[in-house]
């Protein structure tokens, strides 16, 4: 979590409450392929968006990938979706029909309506708080949770290692080969080197953790108590309400189509 997201009121919501909200909205919207439920959910989310306390720039940086990707999902549906209804346009293998256009709109909206809360809620979650919640509230094994947490920190080191490995290979005279075969060979050998380095870094980290009594027989205490309070409960209720409004509207307007049926 960066400084930009640490001040968001969402940062104070328990990670599990955020996880539940994202899961409820995502699951509900996956059950239907109509555009009404997705449009309602997305509209409500956009209304709430100004209240998450994130600067527009930070928001854009987080959401850009999905905002750019969603229309592509739509376009491919327009071109390749099952034809039906009136034919609007045809060229070679492509048919554009009213059904495929409807489906494309529904899919684009759906990707946004599921992705937006998912991204915002994840970005405002500190990995340490998430680990606390998983281990204390959901009773996941602390060794596993804390090991994973420590590993997250190593990912940024791996990016630096990869760069240094590339430079070192050039300095050592083995970065010349041209063509895809040479490139793939290099990629594999460098990937292996990264793996070796990461394992070594990991083992130093494991030693440092062991030296601080991690993995001992004593039962562990927690420096931070993960609390699921009334605020977190209300947050989950709000998320469920949002999903319920979207579904109810779709059902009432007759657009809801349960994909399982």
């Amino acid at each position, binding site marked *: 979590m960066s400084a930009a997201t640490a001040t968001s009121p969402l940062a104070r919501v328990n990670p599990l409450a955020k996880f539940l909200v994202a899961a409820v909205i995502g699951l509900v919207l996956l059950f239907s392929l109509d555009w009404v439920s997705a449009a309602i959910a997305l509209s409500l989310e956009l209304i709430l968006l100004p209240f998450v306390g994130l600067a527009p720039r930070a928001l854009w940086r987080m959401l850009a990938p999905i905002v750019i990707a969603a229309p592509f999902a739509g376009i491919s549906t327009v071109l390749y979706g099952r034809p039906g209804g009136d034919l609007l346009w045809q060229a070679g293998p492509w048919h554009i029909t009213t059904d495929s256009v409807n489906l494309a709109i529904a899919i684009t909206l759906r990707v946004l309506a599921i992705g937006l809360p998912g991204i915002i809620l994840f970005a405002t979650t500190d990995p340490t708080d998430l680990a606390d919640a998983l281990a204390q509230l959901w009773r996941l094994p602390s060794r596993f949770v804390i090991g994973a947490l*420590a590993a997250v*920190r190593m990912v940024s080191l791996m990016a630096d290692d990869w760069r240094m490995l590339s430079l*070192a*290979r050039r300095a050592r*005279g083995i970065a010349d080969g041209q063509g895809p075969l040479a490139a793939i060979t290099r990629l594999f050998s460098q990937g292996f080197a990264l793996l070796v380095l990461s394992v070594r870094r990991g083992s*130093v*980290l494991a*030693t440092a953790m062991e030296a601080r009594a991690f993995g*001992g027989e004593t039962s562990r*205490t927690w420096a931070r108590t993960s609390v699921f309070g009334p605020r977190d409960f209300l947050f989950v209720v709000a998320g469920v309400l949002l999903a319920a409004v979207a579904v109810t509207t779709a059902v009432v307007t007759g657009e809801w189509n349960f994909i399982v049926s």
Partner: protein
Amino acid sequence: MPTSQSTAGAHVSARGWSWRYGSRSRPMFNLLDLDIDPGERVLLLGASGSGKSTLVAGLAGVLGEDEGHESGQLLIDGQPSRHSRGRVGLVLQDPENQVILHRVGDDVAFGCENLGVPQAEIWQRVRAALAAVGLNQPLDHSTAELSGGQKQRLALAGVLAMRPGLIILDEPTANLDPDGVREIRDAVEAVARESGATLLIVEHRVDIWWDLATRVIVLDSDGSILRDGAPASVLEGTRERLTEAGIWLPDPIASIPTSRPLAPILLSTQGGSSFLTLGPLLQGSALTVGRRIGGPAAATDLSINIDSAQVHAVVGPNGSGKSTLALTLAGLIPVISGSVQASTDLAGNARGRHPIDWRSRELMTRIGMVFQSPEHQFLTGSVREELMVGPRALDRRGSRFGRPTVSPHVAEDFRLRIDELLERLHLAHLAEAHPFTLSGGEKRRLSVATALATAPRVLILDEPTFGQDARTWAELVTLFAELRDEGHAIVTITHDEKLVAELADIRTTLPDPATNDLRTGETETRSAEATR
């Protein structure tokens, strides 16, 4: 600080302890017997490879049972060290790999959590520990934003919060700049005073700790105890022996002969006559350097000339862009602005005059780079193979494509040199060992050897003397001096004041980015007479 910090110091003992790594035939220790009383502050010295790190890992109870064969016992207050978690705190040498959590407070609290300390007490301990090491950051400060010295103090605070009876520091200053070294030294002193814990410090640079230590133990290269006594008396009559074992002594070390008659020309292959040339081999003009194009600049507006037969030292605090400058000069990363240009003589038949445009094999025979972290540049499974990498790449280039970079007989020459290099850098007995299993000092020597194996005329070294004991330090410095006298241009990034004093003809100081000092790098040139 109140008595809440204090714990009884632990009693440490070794009873006939031996350890042999699975892959080695020789044991590191043979029937070691040792007693350290509570509250003693022991400085543990020994040549590179004498097993200091193994011993401290054993005492800290983190020596994996599957890594080797153990006999005898290491005891902390009479308990086997493996079952003394929490009684022993260990600070390792690499600040980067021992930060565990994302926030300062959480990281310090980690050990207490594992020991089952009640929550309210944890935070009292965390605050006290941070105060003791002088790390005045908010508890939710990101650990990624700390400097090397701060990260080491964080590790020390994390150890201290566990209230251990024995605190072990394994080369805690090895990766730090001089400011970082002072920070950690002062923090350790404060901690020792307040906690009363037994202290065991492993370090090459003994002058940092000499005043703090109450006892000095010197290990011989076979792991037996060479000397054991008070700092004042431990050196009596054995100074010579200790120097021979490569131990840094508190007095200035004997001067290195930098202009003694040359040994048989070690590494020049490109013909003596063209070797000494007029004008710089490599010229950096109006350089702005950074790790990534479009990323932030690490250093701006630098001009630097790299001349043959000179050692150019680049110094400056951590974060001033020294390593980035080195990588740029070495033709590995592009400049943000300005240019790095090779003389026509250095460039020869390579593609153009900008090293960044050269092929990897062209670069290797012209500019050699020794990386700050040796592990990044190791490619093979043995020391000898490692040295063969460069010559092999040249061979391949020579046989498959036209216009060989060097002629085949020169490549054969390289092969012969490898044996010479192995001897020279004391790696011959390790020729078949895996590079990753070497000690820190040995890894560093191997990385220097790999760069030398293809006889580049320009040698760029990033912290080449870090982690060396006194003997290999002197050998490296002598080697660099000889290379310089043969006409090689040497650029060295370094925090090592002794190295600068012994070797540097020119010193460029990069400004501290933190002080907003907008002056550009200062360059001082010493007259050749003053240096040689």
